[in-house]
């Protein structure tokens, strides 16, 4: 019988994607649907003096025009995570209005909303809305936002801090250890701001049905149920059972489509006002201006070592931008998704991180592929490589000296970090060994020395990362400020004919769930993949769910499905035992049938499911049907890890960096589909290389975005990327049934510091010790000059 787990099964969803037949929100056309456009602020910080909509209201085809003075101006979208000040003060949580009324706090903030019969007419009418602003000075840098006299984003508080938080050991203890350290390495840099750039821009259709008194919101979201919850319970206060949120195909999210955005709530509100469906699709400019950005940390860090190169202490202070308002997960990103990873893969005994998170006159910052973990990894992996240089040690050797020893998490306990978490299982030296072997590290060092003699600038950079995935044990995250549980729902409905519909609260927007989930369901039930359909993205079909982010779908969502499969098989066994006139204990289930052990008497899965729905000859006390739903709340996070190694050549004339090789040895636990895991790693690595070399959101002093289009925001292209050489080690996750850890973000987490380490390595003999990311030709050349 054909099995599927661990095989590179081709993605079923690609059939429609490759034919251009995907069903994205913007593809949907409803009867009587209106179109809409926003009037957005050209200033980052301004007083709204007046808004005159009279000309727009009279324009051809206009259905309605709303401003912050209408009822929707009193509505805001909520934040889903509360991180309080370390002194006990509650997190400062401003109202995040659907439309700005008196004040503009970031470039592109919506001031008016125009609904018309066509998109063209909506755009034309939006130009007729006359807004008078009084521009005010803006602050976009998180550090400057905390300087005295900085322009305030929200007037109600004395400064711009949303919170000031710390984690780890006592600061004084860490400082004392640093003071006594044999060597201290110090770094100050910016982990710069990125725009998420999903190919499909955000798109929404809200449809209020007057007769049914029901709303349907079609939305390009990563988590339809979460959007429904936030929309109903917080933003609009409408009854959850009368709201259906649908997100069919979604063209990439990278975190930016997790959040409940103001436009979703506004369309939903306005649809009832006008009694018609409304569509809005962001254009690329709006995406740059209004999709939640990622990163934007200003970091100052010191790592101390003893004379043998063992890390003795690590102290870090960061300013992490929140943007103008608190986006759904924003407070969690530089704190519980970041500080909790400061242990890295090392035995550092003393760790302290302080995070000041200020409001800035920019679009909100939230989770972006990796969310806090790439920022943690970048710091750890850069500073340890810098330390190796300073102490004249090999960067691989310094890592080996400091690794946490291998542990499997079953017969050996998990590893308790200094920063709240307990790692599940790991073998960190294993991935580095394999990575070095794949690269041929010793030979490379010889080649590099030769090349240097000829004036060629070659460098190698290592990164050995760990990340926390499988978000998350609800009670744990609840104690850390999450306002939601982070379990997942898996529902297995066996149809009378033995065909299976699986409903998952996870959401696929590029990950390939329709394939991977069907693979393991097929193996667990012993039926063909073709007999299994994976349903997601519709709150009317899927009971509940928390969506997809934080590499959680398989580890949490998959586990929920497994739980339901177990229930199906348990009930199926009762029916089978009755039909086979045998005791349940005497049955075994394999290859899609129950067999009486040691005999050839058996009954197939299909016969049992038919019996369950046509229960004429049926066990007593057993309900008809074969349909189970389960909630799975994980007991721990999962901790994928790996080694990424980059080899670069720097052009001595221009400073341009070329990546010659990229080696990735990742450990994501058990692998369901190696092709899809490779794809996830490739995609992540490309995004990580993008951050290292190319991508950056730049705001100027007035808060104008210098990089608001692809003319100026550099995305990685195929010819920027080398062949990515991948391999894996396998250390199963000990606490979930599939033993899986998660692969969605690993690539973006491990790769960035590997590339920058390589560039610095290539230039180290010239005295270069650090280069601000992205390491553009200009920056590299300037570093070489000084």
């Amino acid at each position: 019988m054909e099995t599927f787990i661990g095989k590179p099964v081709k993605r079923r969803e690609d059939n429609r994607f490759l034919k251009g037949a995907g069903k994205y929100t913007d593809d949907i056309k409803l009867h009587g649907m209106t179109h809409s456009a926003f009037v957005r602020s050209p200033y980052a910080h301004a007083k709204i003096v007046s808004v005159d909509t009279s000309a727009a209201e009279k324009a051809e085809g206009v259905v309605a025009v709303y401003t912050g003075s209408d009822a929707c101006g009193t509505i805001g979208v909520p934040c889903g995570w509360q991180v309080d000040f370390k002194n006990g003060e509650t997190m400062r949580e401003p109202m995040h209005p659907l439309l700005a009324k008196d004040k503009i706090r970031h470039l592109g903030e919506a001031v008016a909303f125009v609904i018309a019969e066509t998109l063209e007419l909506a755009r034309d009418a939006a130009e007729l809305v006359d807004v008078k602003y009084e521009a005010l000075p803006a602050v976009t840098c998180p550090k400057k936002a905390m300087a005295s006299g900085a322009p305030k984003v929200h007037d109600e508080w004395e400064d711009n801090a949303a919170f000031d938080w710390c984690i780890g050991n006592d600061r004084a203890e860490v400082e004392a250890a640093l003071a006594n350290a044999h060597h201290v390495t110090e770094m100050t840099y910016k982990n710069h701001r990125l725009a998420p750039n999903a190919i499909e821009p955000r798109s929404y259709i809200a449809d209020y049905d007057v007769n049914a008194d029901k709303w349907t919101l079609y939305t390009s979201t990563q988590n339809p149920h979460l959007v429904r919850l936030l929309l109903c319970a917080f933003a609009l206060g409408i009854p959850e059972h009368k709201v259906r949120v649908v997100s069919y195909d979604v063209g990439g999210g990278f975190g930016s489509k997790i959040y409940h955005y103001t436009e979703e709530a506004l369309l939903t509100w306005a649809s009832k006002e006008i009694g018609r469906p409304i569509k809005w699709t962001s254009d690329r400019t709006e995406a740059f201006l209004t999709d939640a950005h990622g990163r934007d940390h200003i970091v100052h860090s010191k790592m101390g070592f003893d004379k043998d190169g063992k890390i003795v202490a690590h102290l870090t202070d960061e300013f992490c931008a929140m943007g103008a308002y608190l986006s759904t997960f924003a407070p969690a990103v530089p704190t519980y998704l970041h500080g909790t990873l400061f242990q890295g893969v090392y035995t550092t005994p003393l760790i302290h991180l302080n995070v000041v998170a200020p409001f800035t006159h920019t679009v909100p910052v939230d989770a972006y592929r990796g969310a806090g973990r790439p920022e943690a990894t970048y710091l750890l992996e850069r500073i340890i490589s810098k330390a190796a240089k300073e102490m004249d040690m090999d960067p691989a050797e310094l890592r080996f000296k400091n690794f946490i020893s291998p542990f499997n998490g079953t017969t050996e306990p998990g590893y308790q970090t200094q920063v709240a978490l307990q790692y599940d299982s790991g073998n960190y030296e294993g991935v580095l060994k394999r990575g070095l072997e794949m690269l041929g590290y010793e030979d490379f060092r010889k080649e590099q020395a030769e090349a240097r003699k000829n004036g060629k600038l070659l460098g190698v950079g290592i990164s050995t990362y760990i990340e926390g995935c499988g978000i998350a044990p609800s009670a744990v995250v609840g104690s850390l400020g999450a306002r939601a549980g982070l379990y997942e729902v898996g529902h297995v409905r066996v149809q009378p004919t033995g065909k299976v519909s699986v409903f998952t609260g996870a959401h696929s927007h590029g990950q390939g769930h329709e394939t991977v989930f069907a693979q393991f369901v097929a193996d667990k039930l012993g039926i063909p993949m073709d007999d299994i359909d994976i349903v997601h993205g519709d709150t009317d079909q899927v009971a509940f769910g928390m969506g997809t982010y934080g590499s959680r779908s398989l580890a949490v969502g998959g586990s929920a499905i497994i739980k339901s499969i177990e229930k199906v098989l348990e009930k199926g066994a009762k029916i089978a035992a009755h039909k086979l006139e045998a005791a349940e204990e005497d049955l075994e289930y394999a290859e899609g049938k129950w067999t009486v052990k040691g005999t050839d008497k058996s009954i197939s899965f299909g016969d049992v499911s038919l019996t369950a729905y046509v229960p004429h000859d049926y066990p007593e006390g057993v309900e008809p049907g074969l349909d189970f739903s389960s909630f799975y709340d994980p007991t721990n996070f999962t901790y994928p890890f790996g080694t990424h190694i980059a080899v670069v050549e720097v052009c001595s004339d221009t400073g341009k960096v070329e990546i010659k090789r990229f080696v990735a040895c990742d450990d994501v636990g058990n692998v369901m589909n190696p092709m899809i895991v490779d794809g996830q790693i490739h995609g992540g690595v490309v995004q990580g290389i993008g951050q290292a070399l190319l991508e950056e959101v730049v705001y100027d002093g007035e808060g104008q975005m210098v990089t608001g289009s692809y003319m100026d925001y550099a995305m990685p292209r195929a010819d920027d990327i080398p062949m990515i050489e991948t391999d894996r080690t396998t250390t199963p996750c000990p606490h979930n049934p599939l033993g899986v850890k998660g692969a969605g973000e690993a690539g973006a987490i491990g790769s960035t510091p590997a590339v920058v380490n390589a560039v610095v390595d290539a230039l180290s003999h010239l005295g270069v010790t650090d280069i601000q990311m992205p390491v553009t030709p200009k920056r590299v050349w300037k570093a070489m000059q000084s």
Partner: protein
Amino acid sequence: MIPAKFEYIKASSVSEAIGLLEKHGDDAKILSGGHSLIPAMKLRLSRPEVLIDINGISGMNSITEDGNEILIGANCTHADIVNSDLINSELNILASTAKHIGDIQVRNRGTIGGSLAHADPAADYPAVVLACDAKIEVEGKSGKRTIPATEFFLGIFTTALAEDEIITAIRFPKVANGNYQKFFQSASRFAVVGVACVKDGNSVKVGVTGVAGTPYRATAVEDAYSGSSDAASHAVDGLEDELMSDHFADEEYRAHLAKVMVKKALEA
């Protein structure tokens, strides 16, 4: 990304196009490949009321040999230039330049006439027409005239074309020994610096784009070429106050890159 309303007229002859330009004045724009104009219209940075499409005008998209010269119709696309045997053998510098303009879609639609008329300070062709001493053939209500490349570019997005004039063709001399060196801007893949170099015995002609607001002939380099081994160091002589600056390349780095790319071109 939806342009403001406009009227569309397809011209079938040069004189019709000129007549329409005269009639609509400032409100009208010529449309050729649309790969500079339409993006600007979609952002509503440009909002012509009338578009005069010149793509249907016959004779404006041929590439012909005329003695020692090659005449390229203004409507020839970058792809036409890449694929022309004549250009590949007699004016190779232009084919190799066109090959690196944008991507396939851009090359299939964008035209040489449109690119020159648009005069983007980071466009590639300007360096080449300068180094080749090409001539821009134009026609307007007062008739035809020929503008030497060296007199064509006046500033950022500004040329010597009069309001009622269109470019009909570009006349190049055959060039045996020329090359174009481009340092790509990593986002747009336009030129941060582009240097075209045409060598003839001991003399050289060097055209530079991307560096100053107006593409220029690096005459200081040309003068120093035969005598000095570091001719390239004169790449931005006299332009110190006109260097462009953006977050990819400030003045200092741009000036350095200009010298590097000129050197590369001289040595190629």
